[in-house]
């Protein structure tokens, strides 16, 4: 009789250790996104992009917002607008058609490929896996006067006539990753690329 109780006890105790969820699951996910709403930002305020409203992105931003100890040289004729939080500053071109956003993250920034894919998504550009690899491999690297390796991605090469395009750069500095996004019509971005290039070269640590 004893062993029967022992078996019952073992079964009950084993059951209590069972996990709720299996290792592998298959399910159907349906997420219906809300229609786009008009932004309520002040006139002239640079777009903050829809990703900023993603809860995971918000959590990441809250976790990542750091004041990057970095300085740069504003290109001749460009206007600098001070930023706040993770946006360090916004630079506006003399013709007003192009702007550079300088954004810093405290480390959790998704990696090169993750960011390139995200930027491609923002520009409605699709690349297959091999083309994506080629695009990343073909990016230009600039060493700034402060010794930072700045990787530049010219999305204008993928859609030269696009009305809205981007040339983006990213670099790692102590304790943060800094992104530089020059946005505007593709042709204007190309025209301002030398300024952007010089700007990337001017990056150095605050003394």
């Amino acid at each position: 009789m004893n062993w029967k109780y022992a078996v019952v006890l073992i079964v009950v105790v084993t059951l209590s250790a069972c996990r709720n969820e299996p290792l592998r699951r298959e399910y159907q996910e349906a997420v219906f996104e809300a229609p786009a709403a008009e932004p309520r930002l002040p006139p002239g305020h640079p777009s903050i992009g829809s990703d900023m409203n993603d809860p995971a992105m918000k959590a990441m931003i809250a976790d990542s917002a750091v004041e990057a100890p970095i300085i740069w040289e504003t290109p001749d004729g460009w206007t600098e607008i001070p930023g706040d939080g993770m946006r360090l500053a916004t630079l506006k071109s003399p013709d007003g058609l192009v702007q550079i956003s300088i954004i810093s993250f405290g480390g959790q920034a998704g990696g090169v490929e993750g960011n390139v894919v995200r930027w491609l998504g923002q520009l409605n550009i699709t690349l297959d896996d091999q083309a994506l690899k080629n695009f990343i491999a073909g990016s230009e690297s600039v060493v700034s006067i402060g010794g930072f390796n700045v990787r530049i991605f010219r999305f204008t090469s993928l859609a030269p006539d696009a009305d809205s395009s981007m040339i983006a750069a990213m670099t790692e500095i102590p304790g943060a990753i800094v992104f530089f996004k020059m946005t505007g019509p593709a042709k204007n971005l190309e025209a301002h690329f030398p300024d952007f290039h010089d700007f990337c070269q001017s990056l150095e640590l605050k003394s």
Partner: protein
Amino acid sequence: MNVRQPLLAKLSLMKHLANLKITVTCLVWLLILTFWGTVAQTGHGLYEAQKTFFFSWIFLAGGFFPLPGAQLTLWVLFINLVSVTLTRFVFRWSKIGILIIHLGLLSYFVSAFVIFVSTQESQVTLLEGEAANVSTAYHDWELAFWPADLSGGVKREKHSAKTDVVSYDISRLKPERFVSDFTLKANFVVKSYSRNADVFADGTVKALTPDKEPERNFPAAVIEIASSKPDSDIRKMTLAGADPDPAVVSIGGENWNVSLRRARYPLPLTIALEDFKADFYPGTDTARSYESYVKVSHENLTRDVRIYMNHPLRFKSYAFFQASYSIDDRGRERSTFAVVRNAGGWMPYASSLITFLGLSIHFLMMAFRKKN
């Protein structure tokens, strides 16, 4: 004469388990654990304190001295009470009320066990106009794969309207464990996994000490994946839990999104946030009350529901509580619902009913006996 009692009385193990000292020791220890666990929440956080004191079998006091956790103590108490019931109770009709009361008390333990095993807590956050049929875990993360639509010049969507997802509980994928998936037609291996980590631009991962509040942790994983076809290229990927966008991998000519994200749990309904309303105290940003107007769809039936404080939406074994809200820079309102799945939610009521029944019978029998 009852035939069961002499039989069980012969079992020495049962007699030992039915010792009253065990009952008293367990009750006193539970009292201490409750006090200790409550105080520990201030230093360790709610989640860690619950895990250490209440959900554990054994925990290490001071990091070295093993002590029984609440789960082990409750099991011992349960077994003790069962043993007491089986060995000491002599069935008589005059004692039927007492027996039912004890069965009711034991069924509380069964209820607690079922609820402990089956309860699943998660949340749904919806922008006005959004709808979802999945909820998101607070602490658990999954390695999710779903088809990537790269066709037609349309950007890769984070979520298409309906997506078939294959997911793995990342915490249970041991490093270097080889996984072969028939849906993906791929093999993959998790090379490393960190519960909390920084991922740098070059793909390197720096593991961090996990925060005591698990929702502050963002994991990272390095995986190697290849098509299950022979001689396929192996692709190494670094996935960051903080990255809101999935990576894309081509497996055997098919494109898949890959994401390390908080686990999603399918819901038995689709919930759409129609409107969110918040009343604020005059001149402040402090909400006096807030409520959500949702549309709930299930099998071609749709109904409107108002969810507000202490008035959750209950559907099958699920309850949707109004938990919080946010208003973004664009003035758009988001409502967050705490989703609790509790398959045994009715069981405490049944236990209470059994106990009430036992008490009623016993008191009535006592009353009639006195009268006679």
